[in-house]
C-alpha cells in the first residue's frame, strides 16, 4: 500500500511513541479480528470493515504529514479536527449501515416467527385430524 510516496523530510516514517502505540494497537486488533473470523464469531464483511479502519489508522500513523497536508489544503487549521471530522462521519455511516442490517434482521425474525406459527398450526391440525 502507498508505494509511491513523495519525499517528506520532516515527518516521513514513524515518529514518537504515540505512533508506535497506534501501530501496536492496530496489529493486535487485526490479529484479534482474524481469530474471531476463524472461530466464526465474526462475519467476513465486518472483519473487512474494521481492518479497513485499522489500515487507515496505520497509514496516518506512518505518514502523519499526510493528514497535515490534507488539512491545510481543505483550510482546516488544526489537523486533528480533520481527523475527528472524518472519524465522526465514518462512524455515523457505520451506524446507519448497522441500523439497516438490524432492520433486515428484525424483518427476517418476524418472517421466521410467522412461518413457525403456521407450521405449528398445520402440524397440530394433522395430529388431531
Amino acid at each position, binding site marked *: 500500500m502507498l508505494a509511491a510516496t513523495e519525499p517528506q523530510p520532516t515527518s516521513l516514517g514513524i515518529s514518537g511513541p504515540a505512533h508506535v502505540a497506534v501501530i501496536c494497537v492496530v496489529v493486535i486488533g487485526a*490479529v484479534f479480528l482474524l481469530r474471531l473470523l476463524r472461530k466464526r464469531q465474526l*462475519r*467476513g464483511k465486518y472483519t473487512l470493515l474494521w481492518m479497513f479502519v485499522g489500515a487507515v489508522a496505520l497509514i496516518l500513523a506512518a505518514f502523519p504529514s499526510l493528514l497535515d497536508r490534507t488539512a491545510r489544503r481543505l483550510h482546516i487549521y488544526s489537523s486533528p479536527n480533520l481527523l475527528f471530522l472524518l472519524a465522526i462521519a465514518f462512524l455515523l455511516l457505520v451506524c446507519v449501515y448497522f441500523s439497516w442490517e438490524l432492520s433486515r434482521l428484525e424483518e427476517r425474525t418476524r*418472517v421466521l416467527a410467522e412461518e413457525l406459527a403456521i407450521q405449528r398450526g398445520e402440524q397440530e391440525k394433522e395430529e388431531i385430524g
Partner: protein
Amino acid sequence: MPGTRSPRRSATLVIIPAYDEEAALPSTLDELATVRPDLDVLVVSDGSRDKTGALARAAGVAVVELPFNLGIGGALQTGFRYAVRHGYERAVQFDADGQHDPREIAQLEGGLDDGAALVIGSRFGDGTVEYRVGPARRGAMAVLRWSVNSLVHQKFTDTSSGFRAFNASLLQLFARSYPVEFMDSTESLVIAINEGFTVVEVPTRIRARSAGQPSNRHVRLVYHYLRLMVVLLSHTPMWRRSRRTPT
C-alpha cells in the same frame, strides 16, 4: 419433520440449490432422473419468488423452501443438514441451471470411493474445456487459485466449482458450519483441508448455462475478493492454535 418416516431411498443425495430457477430447473431434474434414476434429489429453493418450489415438487423430488434468500452457502448448508438428518452417507452438489452433466456424477463418486472426503469437479482439469471466462475474471481467478494453493499446499485448477461431492464426515462438519457468504466453495475447500480432510479434483466438463445469467457485477466481485482474502488470511496457520502437527 417429526413423525414422518425418512424418505431416503439411496445412500447419496443430490442437493440442488435453486434461486428463481423455474426456467432451467424442470429440464435439469428431467435429465437427472433419466440418467441417474437411482439417486435421491433435494431441491433447496432459496427464497425463490417464482415457481421453482412448485415445479420441483411436480417433478417428484424432495423440496425444502427457505422463507427468504440465504444465498448459496445458506441453501447448501440447509441441504447438508437435511442429508445428515436423513442419514445420507454422501451428497453431491449440483447446479439447477443445467451446466453440469449428470453422467459425470459418477466421476465424483469415484473420487469418494477412492477415499476422498471432498471431490471437486474442475472445469479446467483437462483438455476438454468448454468453459470460457473473460480476462478480468480469469486474472482474479488466477490470484485466488494461487492464494489457495499456497495456503493448502496442494494444487487445484478450479477452486470455485459448484459441482462437488461430499462424504459423510465432511457432511457432518458442513451441516454444522458452512461458509455462508459468497465464494463459499473456495472457503469450504480451505476449511476442509485445514480440518484434515482429503480433497481431490476430477476433471469435468461444463456446459453453457441453459438459462439465467452469471450472477455478479464487478464492484461486488472486487469487494468479495477482498473479503475472501481476509477470510483466507484468517485461515493461515499463524493465528491458529493448531491441534494437528503440520507435516
